[in-house]
């Protein structure tokens, strides 16, 4: 993978895939399967957030000299998604799949409008600002162990 845009957009697609599997299990009324796939989904999402927050955003902030701009909003949105995921986790614990599906619908839009911003704007800017450092930042994100 040559660019941050490609590398991380691909991760978004993996998260989407995982989301669809969980949602399908909820729709089918399979609580046990839904719990298992949701745990996986939540872990994939958290790992992705962590890569951005620990590696990409600081590198971008340093290269662009701007810590209060786009990355601040992206961190806030990660927090918002974490809260929504925590809410879904609570709903699964109580076994309410109807409520879970409603929260999943909400998360999907929240997640995708965030992805659009990153893929359309932030990642291409990271590729431009980071220049030659792109490869090492990608490697650092690859090497980051899952939380």
């Amino acid at each position, binding site marked *: 993978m040559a660019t941050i845009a490609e590398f991380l957009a691909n991760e978004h697609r993996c998260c989407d*895939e995982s989301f669809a599997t969980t949602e399908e299990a909820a729709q089918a009324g399979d609580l046990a399967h839904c719990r298992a796939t949701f745990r996986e989904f939540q872990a994939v999402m958290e790992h992705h957030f962590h890569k951005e927050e620990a590696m990409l955003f600081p590198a971008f902030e340093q290269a662009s000299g701007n810590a209060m701009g786009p990355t601040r909003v*992206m961190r806030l949105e990660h927090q918002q998604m974490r809260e929504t995921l925590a809410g879904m986790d609570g709903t699964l614990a109580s076994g309410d799949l109807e409520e879970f599906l409603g929260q999943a619908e909400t998360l999907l839009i929240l997640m995708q409008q965030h992805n659009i911003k990153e893929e359309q704007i932030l990642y291409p800017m990271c590729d431009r600002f980071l220049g030659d450092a792109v490869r090492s930042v990608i490697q650092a994100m690859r090497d980051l162990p899952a939380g």
Partner: protein
Amino acid sequence: MNSAGLSLEQAPPFSVPLRFFLTAPWFLVLAALLLLWQGPEIFASRWLPVTLALAHLFTLGFMAQVMLGALLQMLPVVVGVVVPRPQLTAALIHIPLTLGALALTVAFLSGVPAWFQVAWWLLGLGFGVALIAIHLALWRAPVVSGTVIALRCALGALLITVGLGLSLGGYFGWGWSLPVVAMTQLHAAWGLAGWTLLLVAGVAYQVVPMFQITPPYPQWFGRGFAPLMAALLAAWSVLMLGDWETAARLTSTALAAGIALFALTTLHLLAQRRRKIGDPTLGYWRASMASLLASALLWLATLWIPALGPASPAEWLLGILPILGFAVAVINGMLYKIVPFLAWFHLQAQLFRRAKVPNMKQLLPEARIRRQRWAYLTALLLLLAAAVYPAVFTYPAALALGVTGAWLGINLLSVLRIYRRALHEGLASVAWKKSCG
């Protein structure tokens, strides 16, 4: 490159897009009332003033209304640029556009030049503000994606559509001397195949893959489709005005093929969607793209089969399919995603961690969407039937159109009601906790 002016903040205040979204459905009801009042006579010709009034209730009252409101909301997300003074800008677009659409309807129905003059100033103001505000934002876009390219082409097409529309308004209002028939054709083509189609394409590049979890549009398509269509429209306009009939017909053929390609690509992507659960807005996308494909094929047929020329029902179908089929369906479906999400989003921002926020399906239950969708599909089919057999189908079509418009309006208002209640209760509980807990 400079990132200082970049803002990825989500969004203007809720009222900015909402005022457009809550107004638009009632223009469908007005269109239905006009159809009921005029009866089957309206299908006598597409050139009757009452037909033009009906077309503008759809295109200005419903379509432009939602499209401009959604753009003000979407620009920060897709382009990364905020429209300055959003509340004032929205009011300066929404109020003149709404009043202008009403004034133009009265003008067509009465034939009084003064009403055309009133409509001219109002619509000139509303679109003028919209074009300036949105153009400024689009040209400051820090990254030029396929969507930004399509939006720029769409905005260019809107500029041409509005310019032609105002010129035609000058003909009716002040007696300007103009080639009215040719300009009306151009006005309709730039409005539908330019502004509407290219805006929908630019939005589809993002929302179809993201929300239905499908593969992306091919990259060459995303970057090439909109500029190619805009160039073809420009070539067609010149050829038509210059009376080069064969060349104009060949260019039209290429345009129709391009439209069909977009519809087929989108339908193909939707068929590969990874999200298997029933999404109620999916039906609107399918209906919209099927109507668009049918419009393109019918247009091709009229180009090459003389019997389908002017004064045949094909002419009417070529208005109904792209307007009520393609545009109204996709807009209706998108409203059901945007309005509940924005309600949730603004509740979340105001009540963050202090009270429970209803999720999207609680804000707008799927069953409500599904029922209104049946009303919509019935209205579309009946109106298509009315173009062929006006005597039988006009009144049922008008009734169905009124029902679907009112139902959409009521569904959107119900989201707002739940939003207000949740906000009120949430803030009340916060106040209680502060004083007692």
